[in-house]
Structures are given as structure tokens and as C-alpha cells.
């Protein structure tokens, strides 16, 4: 297994635990969704799983604890794309191309490698035609794709997406889903969302449910539709 989560718990100071005793494992390149309603701690869980919170319990990537890694190793391993993508742009680059290159530049990679990764990430997100665009002039959907491109250019082995498709139109969703299925490197993906979304079809078939701090599952997509779910969890395509 690549990612091992064992008995992970977290609470903000003076508050009841947001989640407790979470345990699951992820194989290299595996895709998994964690579905949770509003207020169930999705965004905090994303940061926790990426090793950005002081959590209790174990969080290991191939046997190495995430919170004891060097900055560089941590950055090469895991990326999160969150719900407010414009906060994830560094502002260091004028053009979108420079912005996407920010991460690979920080790793001190050779020029050819920085260029290759940048071009590839722009292509995956259908952004090649906007490469020279001023980053501050991007629309909401373009900004979300820019943040995703910035994360993919790091070629992480674990990508955590917190409601990744909310600002994308159908065309961009399909394009991104297609590229996530056929990446040239092995990358595990955790999708955090409020429910099953139609773009998940064929992309992710193992689902965990987070409700009132407890984890349930994993369920296959088929089981997800067949079992009674916590009432906050949403299934796209079903009557509201």
C-alpha cells in the first residue's frame, strides 16, 4: 500500500473531534472518493490527509510518516486543490505559464524538465491557448483549472481534490476526468465531495462516507446507490 491512514483523529482546540479513528489504505495510483455533507470537516480532512495538520494517529506514505518529511519531499509527494483556487496561485508569475511553472521551479529542476511539466499540465487542463494570459485576468473556471495545472506540474504521487469540479463546465470536467484516467505517472487521487457526481463514473469506484466524525465503507458505486446513505450525502442524477 502507498498511503496508510490508521486511527487518524483531529479536533480543533476546545471543540469535539471533527473526525476520529479514520483508517484506510490506498494503493499506488488508486482513486478513492470521500463523501461528506456540509460541516462534516471535508476541507479539514483534506489538510489532515496531506499532513498539514497535527493529527493523532498514523499517516504514512510507503512507511514514511508524512509529517517528518522534508519540505521538498512533502511537496513532491502530495498536492491539494481546494475550494478557493485563486488563493492557491502564487502571484509570482505574470503569465499562466509562469504560474504553473512555479512549483517545478521551486524544486530546482532543469529548464527542460520545468518546461515539459508546465506544457503537459497546461495541456491536461485545456489551458494551452491561455498560456500567455495574465493570471489575474482568468475567469472562475479558468482559475480552478490553473490551480489544478499548478498541482499536476508537481507530478505528485498523491493528489487530494476538495470539490474539484464545482466551477468547471461539462466540457472541462470531461477533459480533466479523461486526463486523470491516463496520466503518464502513477498518482493516487482522493476526491472529497458532497456526494456522488456523474463525472466520477469510470473514474472512481471506491467510496468512503464521512458522517458525524465516523468513516463508513468502502462501498463500490453500485453499493453506494443500493445502500441507505446518511441523509446529507447526495447522489447526482437522483431526484432531489
Amino acid at each position, binding site marked *: 500500500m502507498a498511503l496508510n491512514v490508521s486511527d487518524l483523529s483531529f479536533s480543533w482546540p476546545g471543540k469535539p473531534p471533527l473526525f476520529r479513528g479514520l483508517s484506510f489504505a490506498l494503493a499506488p495510483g488508486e482513486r478513492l472518493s470521500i463523501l*461528506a*455533507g*456540509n*460541516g462534516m470537516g471535508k*476541507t479539514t480532512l483534506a489538510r489532515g490527509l496531506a499532513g498539514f495538520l497535527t493529527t493523532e494517529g498514523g499517516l504514512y506514505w510507503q512507511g514514511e510518516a508524512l509529517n517528518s518529511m522534508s519540505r521538498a519531499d512533502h511537496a513532491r509527494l502530495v498536492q491539494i486543490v481546494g*475550494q478557493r483556487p485563486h488563493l492557491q496561485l502564487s502571484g509570482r508569475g505574470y503569465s499562466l505559464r509562469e504560474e504553473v511553472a512555479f512549483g517545478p521551479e521551486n524544486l530546482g529542476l532543469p529548464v527542460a524538465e520545468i518546461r515539459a511539466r508546465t506544457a503537459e499540465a497546461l495541456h491536461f487542463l485545456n489551458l494551452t491557448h491561455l498560456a500567455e494570459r495574465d493570471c489575474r485576468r482568468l*475567469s*472562475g*473556471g*479558468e482559475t480552478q483549472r490553473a490551480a489544478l495545472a499548478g498541482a499536476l506540474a508537481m507530478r505528485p504521487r498523491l493528489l487530494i481534490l476538495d*470539490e474539484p469540479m*464545482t*466551477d*468547471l*463546465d*461539462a*466540457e*472541462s470536467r470531461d477533459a480533466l476526468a479523461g486526463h486523470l484516467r491516463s496520466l503518464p505517472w502513477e498518482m493516487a487521487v482522493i476526491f472529497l465531495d*458532497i*456526494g456522488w457526481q456523474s463525472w466520477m463514473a469510470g473514474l472512481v469506484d471506491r467510496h468512503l462516507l464521512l458522517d458525524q466524525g465516523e468513516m463508513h465503507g468502502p462501498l463500490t458505486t453500485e453499493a453506494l446507490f443500493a445502500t441507505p446513505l446518511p*441523509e*446529507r*450525502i*447526495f447522489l*447526482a*442524477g*437522483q*431526484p*432531489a
Partner: protein
Amino acid sequence: MTREDTVIAEDLSFGYPGQARLFERLSLRFAPGTVVAVLGPNGRGKSSLLRLFAGLEQPLAGRISVAGVDPAGPEARDLARVAGMVAQSSDRHFLRTKVQDEVALTARNLYLPDPAALAAQALERLGITGLAAQHPLDLDAGEKRLVALASAIAHGPRLLLLDEIQRGLDRINRQKVIRLIRAEAAQGTTILAVTHDRDFAEAIAGAELVFGDDGIRLT
């Protein structure tokens, strides 16, 4: 008795400076109680249309009337009286330290009688009376959105403008929003909802305004 259409747009043209026009000579009329889902790919001008109706942008040509008010008119308060809006950023921009004061704010700014009662009523209609005394920033993402929606309806607007209101809402909150939209429409409020979500559009809307490759269609 016939009532006049709430929203009238005639020969509307709009585009941002230095960019291609988003639409040209667009004419629309929406009767009271109509719910319109505004659909289409990013960057085609869906949100800009909402901003025009909200008086936040000026049309390059053409005329708009919202319940008889010109949104681009000199007194923004005239439009605030007849329109309410939940923008994508609304749930970040709370101004008061209690939900009940936040929801009463527009009514208070417009000097309507008994803003507190209007706020209580709006919270009740969304089923979030329990949040009234809380600080808006202590709420979770779903509750914040519901408070933003309550703030947009408390003063009883005739036109409600919603930009991706369903974005990131779980099933319970989504149902609350859908129920409220239906109830508002039944009372005669006209609602324009920009959304990427087909299921949501089908749940609320009697009409669809689609910004497509071949222009803008109303179905």
C-alpha cells in the same frame, strides 16, 4: 387581471472593454413567478447577464427594467428594493456579528418597517431559525450559503438573482434551497439562477436560458 412582466430586457448588448461582445440585441421578458435556469459553458456571459440585471454593469446598448426600475439608474437603492442577489462571493462578505442582524441588514438599509421580523421570517422559511443568534463566520459552508440566501430574500424582492447557489451544498441544504425557490416563485418572485448543475436546474426551473455556441436560446 394581468400583471406586467417583472424583467424586461430590450435589445441588450454587452461586452467588456477590449473584448468581443458577449451578446448583442438580446431581448427577454420574464413574468412574475418564472424560474429561469441560466446554463452554458464558462465565459459566455451568464454571470454578466446577472450583473446587468443587478445594476453592477452598464449595458453598451439597450434597456432593462426590473419591476419598473432601471438597474443602471442613479439611485442604487431603488433597485435593491426590488431585487436580491446571492453572488458566488456573498458567503464571504458578512458584515454583522449575528446571523439575525446580517439577514435584517438590507431591510434596515432600505428603512423598511420591522426588519427584525422580516429577518426572523426569512430564517424560518429556510428552516434555520436555530442559527439566528450565531456569528455568521462560525457556520459551516452550507449554513453560510443559506444565510446569504436568507439575506437576499428578507426584504421581499420581486427578482432574485442566484449565481451557482447550489455549489457545494449537501443534500439537506440543497433541498432547503430548492423548496425556498419553489415557494418564492409561488409568491410571484421571478428567479434567475446561473448554474452548471443540470439536476438542480431541472428541479427548480420552468424555463432554461442556454448560452450556447449558436447564440442564446430560451426554452
